[in-house]
């Protein structure tokens, strides 16, 4: 089912080169010229955008942790009225804004983190967190609860899943923006997700050295506070042919209605 192939080919021909060069600069020109739509990207589109067009079309969208902004552009192509992005890496946020101005897209990116959102007054129809949930380890129920003032629907799609338990894999690594030289330590903020193998009282505990944590983002845990509309874990391990560690192993999809 190559539902997204056509729109991704259009993205590739219209936007991929400019978006890549706007963010990564001329040193990424060769990569930008050779950008191709691979089947794994089509698969991800079919899980990330295609099933949720009712939450995208004619809506104002917020994309938390947008990265390069590719999904934000694809949401605009799927009919979104506007997309606002949040991305803490300065060079990415700046590049997206330059790209959006060049193509006159209703897309703006703020250099901020998800915690900064709570201080903002804007309201959005839908909030997306795509491949960023792994960095938001404090993406716990009460934080999502605070998003009630911000949005009606929250959609979390992530490839960082734990293949054994099929749950969101939360990285515990230091994030560092090489371009600006700014490091931001997500674990410095309050860890309020359910913990199983973490002892924060000991700074030398090996959990500080990057040991995996598993955030139990499952319907059972969240059904008391939210209206779970969709939850699925898709395993791609049998289909992947990629050799490196970033091979797409699976996808985690979690959709909740934050208000009744």
């Amino acid at each position, binding site marked *: 089912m190559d539902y997204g192939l056509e729109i991704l080919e259009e993205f590739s021909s219209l936007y991929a080169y400019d978006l890549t060069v706007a963010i990564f600069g001329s040193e990424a020109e060769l990569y930008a010229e*050779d950008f191709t739509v691979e089947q794994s990207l089509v698969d991800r589109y079919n899980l990330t955008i295609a099933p949720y067009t009712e939450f995208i079309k004619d809506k104002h969208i917020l994309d938390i942790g947008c990265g390069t902004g590719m999904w934000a552009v694809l949401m605009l192509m799927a009919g979104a009225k506007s997309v606002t992005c949040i991305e803490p890496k300065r060079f990415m946020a700046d590049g997206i804004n330059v790209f959006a101005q060049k193509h006159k897209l209703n897309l703006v990116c703020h250099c901020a983190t998800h915690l900064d959102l709570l201080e903002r007054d804007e309201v959005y129809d839908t909030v997306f967190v795509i491949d960023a949930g792994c960095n938001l380890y404090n993406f716990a129920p009460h934080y999502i609860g605070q998003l009630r003032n911000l949005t009606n629907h929250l959609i979390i799609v992530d490839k960082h899943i734990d293949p054994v338990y099929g749950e969101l894999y939360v990285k515990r690594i230091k994030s560092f923006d090489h371009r600006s030289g700014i490091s931001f330590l997500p674990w410095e903020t309050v860890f309020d997700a359910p913990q199983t193998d973490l002892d924060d009282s000991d700074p030398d505990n090996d959990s500080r050295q990057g040991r995996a944590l598993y955030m139990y983002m499952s319907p059972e845990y969240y059904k008391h506070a939210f209206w779970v509309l969709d939850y699925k874990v898709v395993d791609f391990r049998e289909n992947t042919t*990629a050799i490196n560690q970033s091979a797409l192993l699976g996808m985690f999809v979690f959709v909740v209605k934050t208000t009744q």
Partner: protein
Amino acid sequence: MKNSNYLERIRFAIEIVNLKEHSPDWMNPGDPNWDQILDPCISIGIDSLSDNITDELLDRYILLPGPNTLIFDYTVYNIGEHQLKIKIHDIENDNWLLPPIQINKLRIQSIPVLPNGIYYPADSNEELFGARLLGQRGEWKFTFITPVKESGGLKLGLWS
């Protein structure tokens, strides 16, 4: 350029720092006539370890005092381990105690990577892991796996 027979095209950027000091004359430390510019012959090449293919280019570079960025492109045809190798062929007044050239940064497709290569001195069988100072005649090698666009460590691309 799409759907060609190559695996990928990679642009490397290597920042080499010319560490040659100012005038050694303690009476005249700021002597403007003292030439801090280096113009070594440097060979930069890629080895495909799986297919025993070597591609190497020898050229003379002008290295101004401080950081200098060398950019070059390479086309990869096969999957697997590759080695970027850099060798300084001649520097006047080279001194093994104070090597005047250092590899400071390495970027692949604009993405900074930790340049944790291995330095092989010419006159010994040592392997100096993590060394960044390049002495004369030795060789510095950095291993990477192609296709780099699928590398989890590089975080390259629009959707990585």
